[in-house]
């Protein structure tokens, strides 16, 4: 996705979560987390907030739009 960078993997690993665990925490499938980490999926605001809370990092640092 042009102009979209996702640093989710970094923060997830820092938090010690697997993709599956994070997916369960935020109520999505593991494939969605994988897509997000590859910056190939643009999440909804709700999902972005949920992920931000789950990994304990600000949204703007996890999802970066140019």
């Amino acid at each position, binding site marked *: 996705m042009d102009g979209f960078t996702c640093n989710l993997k970094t923060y997830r690993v820092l938090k010690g979560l697997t993709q599956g665990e994070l997916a369960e925490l935020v109520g*999505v*499938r593991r494939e969605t987390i994988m*897509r997000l*980490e590859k910056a190939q999926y643009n999440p909804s605001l709700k999902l972005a907030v949920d992920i931000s809370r789950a990994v304990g990092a600000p949204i703007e640092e996890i999802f970066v739009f140019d």
Partner: protein
Amino acid sequence: MNDQKKSASRSPRWLPPVLGGAACAALTGAAVWYDLTYNGGRLVYPMDSYAFRPTDIPMLLALALDAAYVLCLFALLLGGILAQRRQIAVTNRTRKLNPKLGLLGVLGLAGLAGFYTYPVYGLYFPFGFFAFFGFLGFFFEGKMSNILMDERFRENAAKAELKAYRTGFIIIFLLLVITGGHSGASSELALPILMTGIALTLALTLFLSEYLLYRYDHDDALDLEEEE
């Protein structure tokens, strides 16, 4: 533990309707036999006008029972669909479906009967059976059975449906142009062509929405073999 025992001892859900249907068929058969043997078959063969006789009672009762059975089947079907929808809303998971149900799509071949009934009897409704090809979509729906419907899944589903509907509308539009707009096309020919075309388009749309959803979902899974 008790629940397990109860569920094990409980008869399968399909058994009561099947037994009920068999009972109805047996009673109707007996009523037909009675009518042919003791009533001159007056309710079996076509008649011009009807006047009640007490000897008609077995046949009338059998017909009433059949009608009640059909109503019960509809009620069961509706109840099942509503219960499934409630469950989907609660669990947020796709419905449980066996991919083998896709084999029902073979029923679409029944549409070929139209090529016999139309020239011989002038009946074109069998062409409508081509719509059963849409059941082939159960194959792909079954492959995505009981999975979490997260926002990406819903987006993919909407995208797949949109593409399928758009394809269907384009085909129907072309069909109308070709049959209706063609000055040389006779109405006798246009009717079965439209019937066949619309049935096939319906089947294609139903199938495409499931197939495309599977493709969008499956392609994601394929190229995302990644370490945790």
